[in-house]
Structures are given as C-alpha cells and as structure tokens.
C-alpha cells in the first residue's frame, strides 16, 4: 500500500470525513530530495527555482547554538498566498529538513526544532503562488547534533 493511501485510510477512520489533500503530491514523501547530500540538488528536486531573496520571511533562531541536536527555529512568511515553507540546512549530511504545506486557513508560520551538524546557514524557501522566495540565517553550532 502506498503511504499516501495508508495515511488517508487512518485519517478517514478517525475523522469519518472525506479529506481533501491540499496537494496530492505533497502527501507523498519526497525521498530523493530528503536523501540528497547537496542543497542545490534538494531544491532542484523540489522544483524550487529562481528564488528571490526576501525580507518578508522572518527567521527567528539563535545566533549560537550550544547543542546542534536541538535548535529551535521560528519561521513566519509575510508574503501573500504563501502555500509552502521549506527548511534546509546547507551543511547537514542531508540538507532538506522539512516541507510544510499550508491551507488558506492556516497562518504561514511555524515553530519547530531541528538538528544542525555544524555552523551553517538555515535556508528557508517560501512558495507563494508560482514564485519562490528565500531568506537565510547563520547559526554558529558549538556541538554537532547529527550523530
């Protein structure tokens, strides 16, 4: 059984409601993008192109992280029609961390905790309509958290 169908089945059973995935493709795990060791390859595999640097993306993360195993990151997009937020860490063994898809009823903001192998930029990409925007924040990592 495909994972997508499996997840739908579980959700269907618990909610007894028909679910409409935001994007049928998003329900499938992007294995090649998550497993590649190069950030450029990851963005390419995700279909990200011509991303424009934007200060309408806010990244709140520590300047220095004692322990790379847990780095809290808050991301907020002030860009209209934000559909998706991608988090990548350039110098991690596998740079793609996460891909979030938002419905129109969801604020394009989130807080999560990530692992960082070493001092690196956190690169956030926002998909708004057909365009891609990006912003990066450098975090100095004192202790490897990728073991």
């Amino acid at each position, binding site marked *: 059984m495909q994972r997508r169908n499996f997840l739908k089945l579980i959700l269907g059973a618990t909610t007894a409601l028909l679910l409409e995935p935001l994007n049928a493709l998003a329900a499938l795990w992007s294995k090649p993008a998550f497993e590649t060791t190069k950030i450029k390859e990851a963005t390419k595999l995700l279909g990200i192109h011509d991303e424009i640097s934007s200060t309408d993306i806010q990244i709140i993360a520590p300047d220095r992280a004692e322990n790379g195993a847990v780095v809290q990151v808050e991301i907020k997009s002030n860009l209209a029609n934000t559909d998706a937020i991608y988090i990548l860490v350039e110098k991690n063994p596998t740079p793609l961390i996460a891909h979030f898809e938002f419905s129109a009823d*969801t*604020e394009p903001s989130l807080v999560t905790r990530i692992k960082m192998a070493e001092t690196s930029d956190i690169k956030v990409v926002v998909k708004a309509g057909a365009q891609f925007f990006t912003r990066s924040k450098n975090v100095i990592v004192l202790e490897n958290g990728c073991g």
Partner: protein
Amino acid sequence: MSDNMKMRAQLKGGLVEVKVLMSHPMETGRKKDDFGQLIPAHFVQLVTATLNGKTVLEAQWGTGIAKNPYLTFRLKGAKVGDIVSVTWLDNVGETATQDIVVTAA
C-alpha cells in the same frame, strides 16, 4: 510510544495556536550504539493536521527534525470547541493520531 503525543490548541487574539509535542526517537540511521552497530533510521516522514476534519497543514520531514518533534502552527477562523487533529506516520509504518478541543487562552 506512538500514543504519546501532547497537544494544546488555544484561541489567542483571533488565531488558534496549536502546539504539538510528539514522542519519537527521530533516528537518522547514521548514529552508532554502544556496541558500534548502526542504529537504523527511524523518523517521522509525514504529518497532517486537520481542523474539524478538513486538512489545514501537511508536512514532510526528513531526519533533521530534532528528537521528540515539536511543532507550533496557527489557524485562522477556528473557534473554541473546534477539534484539531494531528496524525504522523514514520518510515517504519508506525503512526499516531491525537485530537484536541480548542480552548480559550
């Protein structure tokens, strides 16, 4: 382990803030145990959140999300009494779902 998800959904200034703490090892597959054996990869890959049964957030995660994943997201147009549900599915097929009723902050 898989039924251990902590959630809170509170209405704050017109937005419902949902906080989720999942219990999961998030093993990368690159770490070795005390005997030098690689610990197999074991991590959450898919996360779905619904509001009253309608999908509001879908996420794909890699091994770079920290152990015992934490997530905050915010919903517009949700009200006290609404039901927020979060489901995760990991790479070995384990899954967990948790519902929470929106409360006033």
